[in-house]
């Protein structure tokens, strides 16, 4: 195994058309779990399909360690990449039993029948489906099919495992269970995993690294914690986690983490140049001698109230409150922390 490198990758489907992926470079460390996050149509699935070898890049290259997998002129076909993939539709072969589905990659590799059986059983027990070996995929539930697809990935010990929105077709309860299975799978196999999703909570919960994409470009790649605390640019800021973006006077110097004093000064300054500052709701506290604001909506979420506040100049803030608030209430808020985008 080795790290996977995407080097200035571009893909244009129709000659002269708009690019689905533009000049994307990133490195997935060995054994890493990368989530490709972005709204639908941002090119994340195209990146995944290029890594798998279903699409050829129009520019740039893909390397696994020292090995060039693909560039604009030639590529290693998917059948020779030693990768595995969980498809959104699971892509189980309906004419084969569960065991045959899982064992097929081994059969193609010419593994002997006895050895194959042992490995299939091992893979199926890893996803707790030993009892279902002789069933047809049609007889299984959605979550079980998903686990069969996962077992099929497990069986060949692939260098890279690709997951294309694998939870999109499952209900909420199953999602949590499957997230757990994926984490377990990653820890157990040690394979490099790349996970495509448009759900930021899913990405943050599973991955060791998250790459945010929009309109074919990579906006930022960082650990989930970093991405949440220090997003780059408005798009990432609005995509990851909750929060509000305030437009304030731009601060001198390169200090990006701003405290209450700095924020208050900038809010009142009204300078010529402006900057955008991301404020997380947990950093907004209702207390005396803050900025005056009006509650524009209040939503009871069980453990707390989620508020939308309108500041005096019309800008919007999000805040949490333990005490109930009514629409129209006048409050004053202190912003403990903000991040300049």
């Amino acid at each position, binding site marked *: 195994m080795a790290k996977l490198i995407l080097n200035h990758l571009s893909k244009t489907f129709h000659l002269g058309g708009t690019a689905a992926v533009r000049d994307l470079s990133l490195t997935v460390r060995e054994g890493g779990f990368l989530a490709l996050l972005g709204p639908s149509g941002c090119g994340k699935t195209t990146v995944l399909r290029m890594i798998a070898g*279903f699409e050829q890049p129009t520019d740039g290259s893909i390397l696994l360690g020292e090995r060039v997998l693909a560039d604009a002129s030639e590529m290693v076909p998917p059948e020779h990449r030693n990768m595995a993939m969980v498809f959104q539709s699971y892509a189980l072969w309906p004419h084969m039993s569960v065991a045959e589905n899982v064992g097929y990659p081994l059969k193609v590799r010419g593994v002997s029948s006895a050895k194959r059986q042992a490995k299939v059983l091992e893979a199926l027990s890893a996803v707790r489906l030993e009892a279902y070996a002789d069933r047809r995929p049609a007889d299984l539930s959605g979550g079980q099919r998903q686990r069969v697809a996962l077992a099929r990935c497990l069986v060949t010990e692939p260098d890279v495992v690709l997951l294309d929105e694998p939870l999109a077709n499952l209900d909420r309860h199953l999602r949590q269970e499957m997230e757990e299975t994926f984490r377990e799978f990653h820890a157990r196999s040690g394979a490099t995993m790349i996970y495509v999703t448009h759900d930021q909570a899913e990405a943050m919960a599973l991955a060791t690294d998250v790459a945010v994409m929009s309109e074919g470009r990579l906006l930022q790649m960082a650990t989930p914690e970093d991405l949440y605390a220090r997003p780059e640019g408005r798009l990432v800021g609005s995509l990851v986690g909750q929060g509000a973006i305030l437009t304030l006077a731009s601060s001198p110097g390169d200090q990006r983490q701003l405290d209450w004093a700095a924020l208050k000064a900038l809010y009142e300054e009204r300078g010529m140049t402006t900057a955008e500052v991301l404020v997380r709701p947990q950093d907004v506290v209702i207390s005396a001698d803050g900025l005056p604001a009006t509650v524009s909506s209040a939503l009871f979420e069980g453990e707390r109230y989620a508020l939308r506040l309108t500041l005096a100049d019309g800008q919007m803030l999000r805040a949490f409150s333990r005490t109930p608030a009514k629409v129209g209430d006048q409050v004053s808020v202190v912003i403990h922390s903000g991040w300049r985008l």
Partner: protein
Amino acid sequence: MMRVQNRGNSQPRWLFPFVLTVICLLSVLPLARLAVTGISSALQGRMGDLLTDAVVWHALYDTLVTSFWGMVAAVILGGAFALLLTLFDIRGKAALGFLFMLPTMIPPQVTALSWIGMTGPSSTLLKALGLAPPLGSPQPLYSIGGIALLFGVQNAPLVFLSLRAGLLALPRDGIEAARLSGASSWQVMKDIILPLSLPGLAAGAAIAFVSCVGNFGIPAILGIPASIYTLPTLIYTKFATFNSGTFGEVSVLSAMIGILSIIGLAVEGRVLRGRDYRVIGLTGQAAVFRMNGWRWFAELGLWLTIVVILVMPVTALVASSLAPAYGVPLNLSTATLHAYEEILFRQSITRTAFTNSISLSLATAFGLLVVTVLTGYFLVRSGSRLAPVLAALAEIPYALPGIVLAVALILLFAAPLPIIGISLYGTTWIILIAYFSSFFAVSLKPVVSAFRQIDPSLEEAARLAGADFCRRLTDIIVPLIAPAAGASVILVFLIACNELTVSALLWSAGTQTLGVAIYNLDDSGSFNLASALSVLVVLMVVAMMLVLETMANRLPKGVVPWRS
């Protein structure tokens, strides 16, 4: 590590050249050869002789008249069946539909023979019933009207299918909305259903017309004895009296048929523009209208029609096959299986015909399957901009009347093949090539529908599992399209086994097919032998249609041609 230059496509490099070659050989080459001969003979001034020949104009006129009235009959019959079976609460719809579709799968020469057996002074059936007209009175079917009537019966199912597909695609909520706004059943019919179903009817009529123009079996059996010639039978007789100008003449005559067909197909394409009913059609949609007191009357009418167009002719055919000789009265003491014995065990010609037809059809059905699985895969999966063009080219030989294709292949293979110097003309091989070309579209259609239904990720998963193209083909693709492939084989076998038009021009001693054998037996006056052979053919057709019918639920929509 293997690295190849490709665009991420799943197909191997040889696939596109292979598909291109197949389609050129089976479609482009024969038709181009026909066009070249037609144009060059026109340039040499032979056109003038042909166009001043009254026989040609007469044949063209008779073709148009018989085809027009045939189309009218088909529209009346097929239209009535489609409306009644689709929109009203008739009982026994499945059985009625199946029986109504039968005539189109029965070879035309057999239809013609069975109707001859049903009418006229020497009809065994009428004699047995004591209803036969006096000897010497004319056979009423040996006429323009007779040909047109049988064209109608043979092609009514085409109108039925086309109109039915249109009716099934009607927006049901539109009908319900009209009723809620207070329209009576009759007004809904007149204002909503008929206008919306008109394209389906017009398209059906156009296909029926094209099919009539190219029909050889019916005018050959009914027309030639009365010296009525249509363009296909004129081509046949031109070959019978072969001379140096024949090739030029027949290529111009086939061009005439070709042009008439293209006009018909263009009309069809125009009225159906942008809508493929066969895909939208929902099976088993509940009846929209209740007939109440009229129902038994309509059902009686439908079953009577089935009796007249199917049961009586087939009964007559069976009666003729059991009669000891043509014209001898049939009763329990004279009935004999002699004719069956003769064709199955004595006559070497019919036995050769059986062997030829069955082996040719099997070879065509399975050979074509190999070709169409690869071609279908390319057409559906490649995403090539050439794919729609190639798909259209593959359709042409089947859309054109068989006689045109037969002429094109004769022109192509009349001279020995270049380089190897062997002549295919007069051998079984030319018939096999003609079948491949003619039925390519028949074999391709079910396979392509099946490919369209397969999720591409099933194959992508196999690629990541490490399977190369051949491996995926055997392990994944073929098992997934197996039901459609089975249907394709049966359909091609069914149609190839029964065809006459192509082999009528291409056969020679020792290579006659079943269709040719039936025609020749009738031509030489062995009516009971021809009938017996026809009965066997009808049995075979029904058996295979039933097999397909039982498979129908496991097949993609539109694969079984008589189900919509």
